[in-house]
């Protein structure tokens, strides 16, 4: 029993060094990150009186059922005004002059978050409203930035008609970009003859890309944009690879590269 507990402890320690830890560590890490996010949002709310649009979706809300607690029937939701960039830069300057480096750092992070939200909204406006006959779903448009850490900025738009769907996700300044670039650069992924071909290298408007196919989830096409950005399309119920490539060609890749400040 004792050795089992030690083994579990050792295994958990080893897993903690992997960014792709599964199971318990992932849940605990998620809880820790959610707590950190809530603390950050509370600090923003205390400072500015508004909540930022930088919240990542929190799964598993608090169900207030049982024990005589009332359940929530409605509310005003959250205000998603991005932080005021100029006000935060002024805060940063004041804090820096008074040697409050922690406050200065926080203010710069908030200013960056504000700018990233603006970049995200600019990118969203530049995306097409219809792709291959599929109209975009306005209520599912999403721009997310935490302003810190290694998640970076993500922009999402979905197109759907009946059960045919195209999900578009653009990641900017994301640490997992390095994984995709390695994917493409090291030549480990190549085409093979015979058997089922689930992934291959391809090109979208002259830019190197990787396309994958999975029977249960559909097609996935990834195109690195410059050094730190990536666009991924997930196509569900598309009849063929060519249909997916046609849909991807509806996007202005060079325009996206320019808007994101990439080369």
């Amino acid at each position: 029993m004792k050795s089992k507990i030690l083994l579990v402890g050792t295994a958990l320690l080893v897993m903690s060094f992997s960014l792709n830890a599964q199971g318990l560590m992932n849940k605990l890490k998620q809880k820790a990150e959610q707590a950190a996010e809530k603390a950050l949002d509370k600090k923003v709310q205390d400072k500015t009186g508004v909540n930022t649009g930088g919240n990542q979706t929190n799964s598993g809300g608090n169900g207030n059922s049982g024990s005589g607690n009332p359940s929530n029937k409605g509310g005003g939701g959250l205000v998603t005004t991005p932080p005021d960039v100029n006000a935060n830069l002024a805060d940063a300057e004041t804090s820096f002059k008074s040697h409050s480096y922690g406050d200065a750092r926080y203010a710069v992070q908030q200013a960056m978050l504000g700018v990233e939200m603006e970049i995200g909204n600019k990118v969203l406006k530049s995306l097409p409203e219809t792709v291959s006959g599929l109209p975009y779903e306005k209520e599912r448009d999403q721009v997310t930035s935490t302003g810190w850490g290694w998640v970076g900025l993500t922009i999402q738009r979905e197109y759907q008609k009946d059960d045919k769907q195209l999900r578009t996700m653009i990641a900017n300044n994301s640490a997992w970009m390095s994984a995709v670039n390695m994917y493409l650069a090291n030549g480990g992924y190549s085409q093979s003859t015979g058997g089922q071909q689930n992934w291959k290298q391809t090109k979208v408007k002259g830019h190197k890309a990787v396309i994958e196919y999975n029977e249960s989830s559909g097609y996935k096409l990834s195109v690195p944009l410059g050094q730190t950005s990536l666009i991924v399309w997930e196509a569900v119920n598309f009849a063929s690879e060519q249909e997916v490539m046609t849909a991807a060609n509806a996007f202005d890749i060079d325009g996206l590269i320019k808007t994101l400040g990439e080369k």
Partner: protein
Amino acid sequence: MKKLFILIFSFATVALQAQDFNKNLASARTAYSAGNLEDARFAMQQMMNDIDLLVGKEILNLLPTKMDALSANTKEDNVTANTGLAGVLIHRTYGTGEKTAQIDIMGNSPLVASINAILSIPFIGNSSDGTQKVIKVQGYKGVMQKSVNTETNKENFTVQVPLNSTLLTLTINDSNEADAQRLAGTIPVTEIAKLVQ
């Protein structure tokens, strides 16, 4: 005389860092007003680096210059900002012989959530064979781990203390548990926590 030169040099470095911050702040404001959002963001990232480097240098000044008989190798002191995944990295080593120690402080460390999880689960935090235990360093909870060199039978210790999103790690080899905990207590964790919050 040598100490005076070091003091003058560190004041000069801090002054230069402040100039960089102000320069990058001006660039950020100009770029943002002109609608160059990407340039504004880049300038703000540089501002964060400037602050991280300044805080890193202040923390280095707080760290002990000796760990028992081991003197700090100040020429090898290192502060690195903009490492991508993590925030600022601060590094100091002690001793030059077989017995050495080092302090590493990593801002925005991805390990912090995992260490906090270990600290909150007692049956994992404390192992039955004594190779891992939860300790307190100046009131802050931390994890102490022991490893034994099978050839020399010498014990090496790591003490990790999470401070918000920053991780402080003391590594000391050829020591014992009492000394490792005592030396960890010589690090001004409370002051460092104020600087990194």
